């Protein structure tokens, strides 16, 4: 199958990445060549193959749901791009 410009704009919307109109053309070309390469997999019949979901022969460990650190609000907020005393700040969402 091939990806057209509209499809690419739709996927970019899903990925929350704005795409420059000028770049859509070259992006379409690149992605189509990559998908052509990927679609070699269709040569294989995998009807009877179980998907591999983990390469470890063990299930993920679980742990008690307990706080092991905490009280580090200042540390966490330190890298916030917009400063505020206690919260992360984003553009206004509700009018």
């Amino acid at each position, binding site marked *: 199958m091939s*990806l057209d410009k509209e499809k*690419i704009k739709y*996927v*970019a919307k*899903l*990925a*929350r*990445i*704005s*795409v*420059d109109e000028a770049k859509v053309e070259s*992006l379409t070309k*690149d*992605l189509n*060549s*990559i*998908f052509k*390469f*990927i*679609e*070699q*997999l*269709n040569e*294989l019949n*995998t009807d009877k*193959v*179980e*998907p*591999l*979901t*983990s*390469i*470890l022969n*063990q299930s*993920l*460990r679980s*742990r008690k749901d307990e706080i092991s650190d905490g009280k*580090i609000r200042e*540390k*966490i907020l*330190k*890298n*916030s*791009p*917009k400063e505020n005393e206690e919260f*992360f700040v*984003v*553009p*206004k*969402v509700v009018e």
Partner: protein
Amino acid sequence: MADITNQSLNEIIENVKTKKVSSTELTKAYVKNIESAKKLNAFVTTTFDQALNNAKQFDNKPNFDQLLPGIPLAVKDLFCTENIKTTAGSNILNNFIPSYESTITKNLWDHGSFLLGKLNCDEFAMGSSNETSYYGNVINPVGDQLVPGGSSGGSSSALAADLTPATIGTDTGGSIRQPASFTGTVGLKPTYGLCSRWGIVAFASSLDQAGPMTKTIKDCAIMLEAMSGFDEKDSTSINKKKEQYSKNLKDNIKGLKIGIPKEYRVDNMPKEVDELWEKGKKILKDLGAQLIDISLPHTKYALPTYYIVAPAEASSNLARYDGVRYGYRSKQGKDLIEMYEKTRSEGFGDEVKRRILIGTYVLSSGYYDAYYLKAQKVRQLIKKDFDDSFKKIDAILTPSTPSSAFKIGEKTNDPVSMYLNDIFTVPVNLAGLPALSMPAGVDKQGHPLGLQLIGKTLDEQKILNIGYAFEKNCGFKNEIKKWWS
């Protein structure tokens, strides 16, 4: 004494232990080298003051019983370092200062070493040439027009240029082994789960694994011993007893069975790669190993599988970069959604955006079965190829890469040709196995080439031993002229 920085890590440690050199003298020597090697662009951040302070502290109160006593180390800028900027080679993390230390770097510091600086890499480790970094491409010390490989290209360049005695990288599809091969150095991707992923900027979580990059096999064993180990903060960390890889290093490989897979060739592969593979086989045979022809029939499907699985996981992992809690935020964007879209568009580079779009597409409604599920099934077949072969052999010998280092800009306009560079390294990540790239010779232009040893799950010691025996008999010497200083 003679220039200490061109010695192996093991020799340097001996010199520190026997007080032939102090940690401060050693650190100063590396600082000097790094300052005269700016042309290589291997560093994103240097931490000289902190390093010299740490060295002084060591010299005042030395502990020589540690694995890495008073050793300064530069690390890939994908490992979070407390209070030191960590960029992952991206604009979106240009101002990110972690408030915590990754488990791997903490392990290294706990063994007596300290940070010298953070090394350039492809953006979010997505690349095979270090050309996708926001901080500019790194140059290979082997030649001023050559890429150092990627994504751990700052690591391989710094190591080969004597800017750090050893280093660490991460390997999702070959990002340790390919740059090691391109610079005539040793690189090991451990078994998935042997080294903690906690505090490493995530790319593709089911494939990512950190590992050592060093000048010799012995150095590699020392570094692996220091960095590996169970970590309860990583849910896929393997809980097992710590190994003493360096102490248990042996060069006797008599009777070991080495598999030679017939599928590890590509069209137009330079004949030197084939000749080197032949040379490798002969060396191992002469040392008493037995060569066995094997088949890994799904090898050609590994890269297409990888380019579904890795972007899918990346699109999910990189969803966190939204300009809200940390990192870059666009000044444009009138509402929240537009702020996300502008932030991600301005913050990520082209290759990262390409992979996020691939990943988003293969996971999107209506396409999941055709791509992602299909890839997971083929991944199972690739793993089964290895499992079947390893019933009758101890390790596998292959070339590390289909060519030596290519020229800067040579492959940037053709993503698929860039991806093909990882054709021999990617299958190992999909199967979660350990693999070592060791320098073995040069091509007709004099550029280094590596051979790869693939081991069974958690069989790092065995491939290190084979590498150790190989290294002693191979006669390779990395002759790099310091043209940059």
